[in-house]
């Protein structure tokens, strides 16, 4: 084997090794959760990396808890509301920020970015007061409101960037055709922004779906809880037992919808992230 060929083969080998390491790093925790969730509690602490004889008793137990199903429903409602609200608000904001030239545009964008830099904990107590004052404590609206606040800076920035990339003449053509700003936005620009909307919408959905701190603080009863909190509060038969099997089964159940969503929209996301070549 010539040295060149050897070098090439080694490089290729190293490349795949690296990919393998990254893959294990990213997937192993989830994989181990699946493995654990499929074991009966008696077999929990025997370390094994393969699924030998799957046992679905954990899943059955989780799905039999009414409060867990309720939590999934709550999470779904909250996440969908957040996505709708955030996309609507950020789309209209992005139209103004990305297409209209006005004084103070830069400062507004900077402010939006600045707001998103506060850590959740820093605003928690203040937000709690706001939610109490609005009478939203222990309702889904509390979560919808607080998640929207935290999602908006991101969605506004992403959509503003996309909006800014659309050719200016397109909008002027619409104006010449007699379109109002609203018609221009919804019938000319919106269809071109679909990939961006799907991308940001999905990311907003994931953020709302996984959020824990606000959900724990702003909800009190089982009937209002979202999934992350519900999972955290699953308890075993005695205070000293952590029902790992149940926890893992619930986690897998909660993660699967996200994975499916991402797979469905995968191509959209990629095209959304690389869009910009929109020349008519």
């Amino acid at each position, binding site marked *: 084997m010539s040295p060149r060929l050897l070098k090439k083969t080694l490089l290729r080998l190293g490349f795949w090794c690296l990919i393998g390491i990254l893959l294990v790093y990213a997937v192993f925790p989830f994989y181990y959760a699946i493995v654990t969730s499929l074991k009966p509690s008696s077999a929990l602490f025997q370390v094994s990396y393969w699924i030998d004889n799957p046992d679905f008793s954990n899943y059955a137990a989780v799905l039999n808890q009414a409060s867990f199903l309720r939590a999934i429903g709550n999470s779904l409602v909250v996440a969908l509301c957040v996505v709708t609200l955030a996309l609507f608000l950020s789309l209209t904001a992005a139209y103004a920020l990305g297409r209209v030239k006005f004084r103070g545009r830069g400062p507004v964008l900077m402010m939006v970015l600045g707001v998103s830099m506060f850590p959740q904990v820093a605003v928690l107590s203040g937000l709690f007061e706001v939610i109490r004052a609005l009478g939203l404590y222990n309702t889904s609206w509390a979560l919808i409101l607080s998640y929207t606040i935290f999602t908006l800076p991101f969605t506004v920035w992403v959509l503003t960037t996309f909006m800014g990339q659309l*050719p200016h*003449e397109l909008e*002027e*053509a619409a*104006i*010449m055709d*007699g379109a109002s700003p609203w018609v221009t936005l919804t019938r000319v620009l919106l269809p071109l922004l679909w990939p961006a909307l799907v991308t940001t919408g999905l990311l907003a959905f994931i953020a709302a779906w996984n959020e824990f701190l606000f959900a724990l603080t702003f909800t009190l009863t089982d009937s209002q809880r979202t999934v992350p909190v519900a999972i955290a509060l699953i308890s075993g038969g005695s205070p000293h037992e952590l029902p790992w099997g149940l926890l893992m089964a619930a986690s897998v159940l909660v993660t699967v919808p996200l994975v499916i969503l991402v797979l469905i929209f995968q191509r959209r996301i990629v095209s959304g992230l690389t869009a910009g070549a929109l020349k008519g």
Partner: protein
Amino acid sequence: MIKLKLDNVNKQLGGARILRDVSLEISAGEFVVFVGPSGCGKSTLLRLIAGLDSICGGDLLIDGRRVNDLEPRERGVGMVFQSYALYPHMSVYDNIGFGLKLAKTEKTSLRERVLKTAQILQLDKLLQRKPRELSGGQRQRVAMGRAMAREPDILLFDEPLSNLDASLRVQMRNEIARLHGRLGSTMIYVTHDQVEAMTLADKIVVLNGGRIEQVGSPRELYERPASRFVAGFLGSPRMNFLAAFLHAPGETSQVESLVLGRTTLPVDSSDLAANTQLSLGIRPEHLSLKAAQGTTGLVVSGVEYLGSETYVHLDTGQDEPMVCRCEVNAGWRIGDRVELQLDIDNLHVFDAHGTALKRRAIESLPAGVAPHPASAGVL
């Protein structure tokens, strides 16, 4: 009938004055071309007429009605954009019909008008296609169709052909000319390409630095430029300019210049003082060359062969060589010494501000009569 009238229109952006006191009248059915170097304000003027930019001062009247504050759709204008700006997600049919749909046109008449427009532009077979499936020329036609569909009285074109390749450009130029003949609507066309301007226009408006330099038919502008700018802008290769000064002012002027020596020219310079700086302009096709004797005359510094004609460059000692258009088989070569013969009738004289001096007597010169031998400057 006056279709569109601009009355002392001004436009400012930031501190810069983009248009200064532009006044212009455009008759119904006229094909008007705005031409000028980049940054002269021609596109801005078009956008003011369209209503995409606001007017800072002065009036814009369409059919005698002041339209300064009207929305674009209320002005009865359609516009074709430089980059076409077709709606990428709509079919050709929807692109053309979008304006009609927004105007709440009834469905059957909308269909009828879209089909009619498509037929005029030979787009019938492409109606279901998306813009990305069309060639450059077809996209251009869709853009025109979209502007035409609402049957505006005035069609505006903003450098519509600059994205096309050379041969397609010639073809689309002819199509636009045919379209104008067929529709008979008023068209205003912005370009920086003087060939487009000369071939398409009934009336050319030359803009420079936000001001109108001259308005007239292509022939007027070419043969009787009112300023040195217009003279230099139209024509390719451009007009030759020679520095000169006024020797004896009067109704016919005696002018002295480097290459021509002292010549009497039929222009009126009675307003000017003796020794004023002038510049003389002569187009390459109005020069002819003759072999010079010995070491007299000018030296040929370059020859450009174009197939149908040859451009001979002559070294005059100025920065730019003089260019003379010759027949291909004239056979001049670099280093040859030539005598310059020029046609006094086609010599233009500009004062220090670039304004053309008024011509005398030339207009009364019977056609076909050769200029008097004494008036032909020979070097």
